[in-house]
């Protein structure tokens, strides 16, 4: 796990521009992600800029999400982990209050892409 995550991480760092690490979700589309977030009602629990009605205070606010260092305080905030987490949080953080949410792999990628697009 460590070796793998280090290799993945290093690949990301190596291609990051001067401003630092920029997470990019392969196959994710931020525009579709915004739509998916509205449909899946993520805003019931999270504050999400750009999504009407997303004012929830149950979970943490998701503004500037790509600057967060960790996901759920347990995992490095990198695309592969986030894609998994938005869809099946309990598999990565068994004690989390966030439920698994039914969505396709594409939807998960889109959602992650949108979250990473937030300034």
């Amino acid at each position, binding site marked *: 796990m*460590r070796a793998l995550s*280090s290799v993945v991480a290093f690949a990301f760092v190596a291609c*990051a521009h001067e401003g*630092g*690490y920029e997470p990019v979700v392969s196959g994710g589309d931020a525009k579709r992600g915004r739509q998916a977030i509205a449909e899946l009602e993520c805003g019931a629990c999270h504050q999400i800029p750009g999504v009407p009605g997303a004012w929830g205070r149950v979970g943490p606010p998701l503004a500037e999400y790509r*600057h967060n*260092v960790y996901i759920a305080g347990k995992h*490095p905030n*990198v695309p592969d982990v986030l894609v998994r987490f938005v869809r099946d949080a309990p598999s990565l953080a068994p004690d989390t209050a966030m439920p698994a949410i039914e969505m396709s792999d594409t939807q998960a990628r889109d959602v992650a892409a949108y979250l990473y697009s937030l300034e």
Partner: protein
Amino acid sequence: MPSFIHKPRRKVVLLAAGALGLVVLGALSASVVLLSGAYSTAATTQHFKITHRLLDAGLRFSVRSHASGVKVPDLAREGMLERGAACYRMHCVQCHGAPGVARHPAGRGMLPIASSLAQSAREWPPEWLYYVTRKGVRMSGMPAWEFRIADEDLWSTVAFLTRLPFMTHQDYLDLHAESADFSCRAPTEMRHDALHGDVKVVFRQYACHACHRIEGIVGPKSRVGPPLVDWPRRKYVAGVLPNTEENLIRFIRDPQGVSPHSLMPKLDVGEVHARQMARYLLASE
């Protein structure tokens, strides 16, 4: 006609007088704040937000500019990550903490607080990390590590830092265990190249000025050790040895060896630096 010439000049004079008045007023009010003791130097009094943001931005701009010429070597070489982890364990975790690992007590109440490096390493390119690690940060607790860590291992530390944002607690513990046999190398003679030509930096990096007042070196007015001013007129080194270059070097390198029970500790000063110091002192008028 004359009014045509005089009016603008009068304006300039008035403006200059006004500006001068403002400067004087500013200096006066600053003096009042300073002398009254109203300004708090307590580490419990945080900077204003604007001051904090300005210091942050200043650091960023300075580092960006100063690190621009730095060439990053291959950071994936064998053993680099483990060596970097060893350096981190030895010199960094105390103030910066690690994933799931608390800072030592001294690192918790610092002002400014030492940054969480998982964040810094996520946002800063390797050359910035190298520069800050090597040179330290003035007016913070961050020393210039180039004097304690060999250059290769400054880069090992950077190699480690670039992975840090992507480590879980368990990753960190695993690496900690895997790197148990690695050590962080010190520079052979405290980066002699970097110090060459500026003996004042040499004195400061061995903390000489913490105890001695030294001719030409800005520092606290310390009286722990004797003042090192007007040194050529002194007859003895530590009241024991005749004041010659060689004796001075001997004492600087091994105070208690020369003078048992001396309260001056051995600071691992190398031959080259001891000679630089001795010559500087013996040349000071």
